[in-house]
C-alpha cells in the first residue's frame, strides 16, 4: 500500500479473558506472549519469550523463513503491474533482491527472484534498473517469466502484485487491476506443464466475486499452496496483541483511512485476522451494508457496542487530528464527527451473529486501529496495526517485511501459513460493500459469502 493520492476518494486493552483463564494469565497470553526477548543473530534461533526472558507459549512461534544456500534457493517469478518508487511491486521486488530487516539482522531472501513480468513501464520505472544491476530478467509475457523462456514451468513459486498502475475504473469506482488476468495466465502455464507451484496474490483477489471464487478453486483443483491479502494482518501490533484461538467474541471494528476498493481491504483484514480466531471459527457473512456521511454515522451510533469499539480503537491511534491549538486529541464521538463528517462505514453481519465494522475515517486518523469485544464479557481488546508508511514516518515500507517473509515461508515449506479463505471472504465483503454504496447504501444479503474456515493456531504477525 502507499499513501492514497486522494484520501477522500477511492484509491486504500481492556481485555476480556475467555472462560477458564485468570485475568493475569489471559493478559499474558494476549499481549505478553507476543512480546519478544530479543532477536535472532548469527544463525542462533531464539524462541519467542516475554520481556522477562521466560519462554512464550508454543502456540505463538515465529521462526524466520528457512535459510538455504544461494545454490539451493527456490526460484520465483514476480508478476507486476508496475515497479516504481512506493508501488507494491517495488516493495516486494526489492525485498526479494536486497533482503530486509528481520529478527534483528539483515535477512537475505530465502528464495531467488529468477524472473519478472512487468505490465506497465511508467515514468520512474525501476524494474529495468533492477534488471541491469541485479540481472533479474524481465520477460515479455507471464508464460515466459514462469518458464524462464522454456516450455514448462521452471520456477518454484509465483508472486502476483496487481496493485498500482494505469488501469480503468468501472462505474462503481472499482479500479480494474488485472489480478484475475495474471492469475489465468499463471494457471495456463500450470495446466500446460502438468504441475503447479505456490502462488501469492497481493491484496484482494478480484473485483468480481465469481473470479475470486475461481481463483481459490483453481488452487484446490491444481493443488498449489495459495496465499493472498494485505500486509496489515502480519505487521507489528501496538501492543503486540493476539486473540487466543477459540475465544468467544461478539463484535470487532477497525477504524482506518483511505478509500473504497483500496484501503478498505486492509482495514477489513485487520479486523478479520482477529475476528477469525473466535470460538467456532469463521462461518461466512450474511449481509453487508455500506454507507457514507451522516448515514454512516447513524449506522455507527445505532449500537452502543459499536460506538464503544470505535472509541477503544481510536484510543490506539497515534494520528488523531487534534483540535486547533493542540497536538494530542482525546478521542470522543463528538471530536470524531467534527473531524470526519463524511466517513465510509461497512457493517458486516456474519452468519453466527458476529459483526464487523469498518470505518474509513479520512480527516480523523491516518493509521489502522482495531478493537474486539468479547462475548458475554464487559471487556474490549484493542491494538494498532502499525504501518511505518513512507514518506510520512519512514523511508521503507517495512510492513512488507513480514508479508514477504510469509511468502518465502510458503514457497520454502510448500504450505500457506494462513488460509486464503480470509482474503476470499474479505474480497467478497469489499465487492458487496462497493455494490451497497452503488445501489444507494442499501443492506445486501450475501448468501454467496458462505465462506467458512478455521484460523491457524499460530500467530503470524510481526513480533520479534
Amino acid at each position, binding site marked *: 500500500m502507499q499513501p492514497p493520492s486522494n484520501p477522500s476518494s477511492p484509491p486504500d486493552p481492556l481485555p476480556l479473558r475467555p472462560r477458564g483463564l485468570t485475568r493475569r494469565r489471559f493478559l499474558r497470553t494476549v499481549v505478553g506472549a507476543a512480546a519478544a526477548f530479543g532477536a535472532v543473530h548469527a544463525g542462533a534461533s531464539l524462541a519467542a519469550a516475554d520481556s522477562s*526472558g521466560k519462554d512464550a507459549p508454543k502456540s505463538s512461534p515465529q521462526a524466520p523463513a528457512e535459510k538455504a544456500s544461494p545454490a539451493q534457493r527456490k526460484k520465483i517469478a514476480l508478476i507486476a503491474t508496475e515497479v516504481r518508487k512506493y508501488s507494491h511491486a517495488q516493495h516486494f521486488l526489492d525485498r526479494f533482491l536486497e533482503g530486509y*530487516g528481520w529478527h534483528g539482522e539483515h535477512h537475505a531472501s530465502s528464495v531467488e527472484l529468477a524472473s519478472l513480468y512487468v505490465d506497465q513501464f511508467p515514468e520512474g520505472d525501476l524494474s529495468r534498473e533492477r534488471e541491469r544491476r541485479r540481472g533479474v530478467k524481465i520477460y515479455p509475457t507471464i508464460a515466459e517469466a514462469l518458464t524462464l523462456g522454456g516450455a514448462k514451468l521452471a520456477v518454484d513459486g509465483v508472486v502476483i502484485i496487481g496493485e498500482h498502475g494505469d488501469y480503468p475504473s468501472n462505474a462503481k469506482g472499482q479500479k480494474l487491476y488485472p489480478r484475475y488476468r495474471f492469475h489465468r495466465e499463471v494457471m495456463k502455464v500450470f495446466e500446460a506443464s502438468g504441475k503447479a507451484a505456490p502462488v501469492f496474490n497481493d491484496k484482494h483477489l478480484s473485483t468480481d466475486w465469481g473470479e475470486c471464487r475461481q481463483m481459490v478453486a483453481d488452487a484446490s483443483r491444481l493443488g498449489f499452496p495459495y496465499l493472498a491479502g494485505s500486509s496489515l494482518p502480519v505487521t*507489528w501490533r501496538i501492543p503486540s496483541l493476539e486473540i487466543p484461538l477459540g475465544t468467544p467474541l461478539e463484535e470487532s471494528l477497525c477504524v482506518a483511512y483511505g478509500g473504497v476498493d483500496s484501503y478498505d481491504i486492509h482495514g477489513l483484514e485487520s479486523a478479520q485476522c482477529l475476528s477469525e480466531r473466535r470460538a467456532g471459527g469463521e462461518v461466512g457473512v450474511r449481509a453487508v451494508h455500506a454507507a457514507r456521511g451522516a448515514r454512516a454515522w447513524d449506522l455507527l451510533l445505532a449500537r452502543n457496542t459499536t460506538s464503544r469499539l470505535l472509541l477503544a480503537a481510536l484510543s490506539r491511534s497515534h494520528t*488523531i487530528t487534534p483540535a486547533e491549538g493542540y497536538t494530542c*486529541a482525546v478521542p470522543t464521538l463528538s471530536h470524531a464527527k467534527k473531524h470526519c463528517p463524511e466517513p465510509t462505514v461497512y457493517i458486516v453481519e456474519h452468519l453466527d451473529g458476529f459483526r464487523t465494522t469498518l470505518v474509513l475515517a479520512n480527516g480523523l486518523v491516518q493509521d489502522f486501529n482495531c478493537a474486539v469485544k468479547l462475548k458475554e464479557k464487559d471487556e474490549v481488546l484493542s491494538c494498532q496495526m502499525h504501518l511505518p508508511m513512507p514518506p510520512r514516518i519512514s523511508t521503507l515500507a517495512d510492513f512488507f517485511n513480514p508479508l514477504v517473509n510469509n511468502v518465502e515461508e510458503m514457497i520454502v515449506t510448500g504450505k500457506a501459513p494462513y488460509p486464503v479463505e480470509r482474503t476470499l471472504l474479505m474480497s467478497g465483503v469489499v465487492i458487496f460493500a462497493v455494490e451497497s454504496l452503488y445501489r444507494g447504501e442499501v443492506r445486501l444479503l450475501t448468501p454467496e459469502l458462505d465462506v467458512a474456515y478455521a484460523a491457524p493456531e499460530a500467530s503470524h504477525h510481526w513480533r520479534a
Partner: protein
Amino acid sequence: MAPKKLAVIAEEMSIGSAAQQLLDRWLAGFPFGGTIHARAFDEVILHAPAGAWDGEVARRVTDFGLRTVPSATAAVEGSAAAAVIPAGSGVQPSGSLHEVLRCPSTEGRRCFVHGVLAEDGAIARSAVNLARSRNVTLFCGGALPFTWRLPPADVPHGAEAREVLIVAVGDAEGAYLAATDALLALAARRKGGEAGIRRIRALEGKAVWKAGDEGEWSKKLLAAALSRSDTPQGNGAAESRPEELVESGLVSSLAREPAACLFEHADGFRSSVLLLNGVVADFNFACEVVKDGEKRFVSSQLYRPCAPATHELSALAAAVNAFFGGGPPPWPPERSILHAGLLDVLRRARTRPGDRIETGDLQVAFSVPEPSTFPAV
C-alpha cells in the same frame, strides 16, 4: 475536600515542546493503553515564562481552567505534586528545581523532572540530598525509556550482559540525552545492576569507524540495531529500497559528521551511543546477553510516534501519572545522578575527542525493578 492540584513549572513553552505536550495531557487527559487516561488533577497551575506562548495559554485557561502564576513557588503552593520541565525538552538543566524543592509546601510531595536532573553529577546529588531531606520523592527522566519498542524486547532482568549499543539521531545534545536515558534503562537490568561508569570516550569522524574496526564497539550490535530501523537513508530514502548497511560499508559513507560516545562501566560492561545522522532517522538499540550459556542479541527500535501528537510522551505521562498517584518511581534517584554526571563528562569529552576521560565520581551503583519500563499494553 480540597481540590487536588498539580504544579507545572515550564522553563520554555512552545507548541510541540515537551512542556506543552505534557501540560496538555495533564489538562485534558490522553489516550494510552487502550483507554483514556482522564485528567488526574482537579486543577493544573502553570508557571511559565511570558512570550509567544501567551495566546495558547489563554486558550487553555478558557478550555481547561488552567491557572497561571508568576513564580515557581506560587505554583507549588498547595499542590499535591510538581512537574519541572526544563528548556530544550529537558536538555538544559532546570534553574527552578532547587527553588521548587526548597518550597515549604513541597515537603512530602512528589516531583517529576523532565530530562536531566542537573548540569553535573555533583549538583544532581545535592538535589537528590535536598529532596531526601525534605521527604520529596523524585522521578527524573525522558520519554525514550517509556515508549513502545518494535519488537517489545528488553534485556532480561538479571541477565549476564556484555555490551549495549544505541544508534541515535538529531542534534548531539538532545540525541545523547535521550539515548543515554534509554541506555541506562537497558543496562541497569543486567546481572548485578548498574555499577557506575569508569571512563568515557568521545569520538568524531573517521575515529568512530576505526574504533569499530578495533572492536571498541561491536559492529554486530550495530548491524542488529540498524536492522530495526524503518528509516534508512541513501537508497532507502531515494528509492525506498532496503539494503544491508554495515557489512557493505554503506554506514560510513552515509553518515554525516558521525560521532560516538563509549562508556566503560565499573564492572567491565561496555555501552556506546553512535550518532549516525544521514544513516537512519530513528533510535534503535542492540544488546549482547548470555542466556543458558549462549550469546544472544536483543535488539529493537525505540519507537517515536509521529508529530504532532508524539505519543511517546503519552507513555511518559502515563508513567508520571502512576508516580504521582503513589506508585514507586521507575528507578532510584542515583540513576539521575549518574545520568547528569555522565552527560557532563561527555560534554567535556567531546571537547577532547579520542581521549579516555576518567569519570572520578561516577561510580554510582543502583538496581532497577524487574518490570520493563516500556508499555506492555
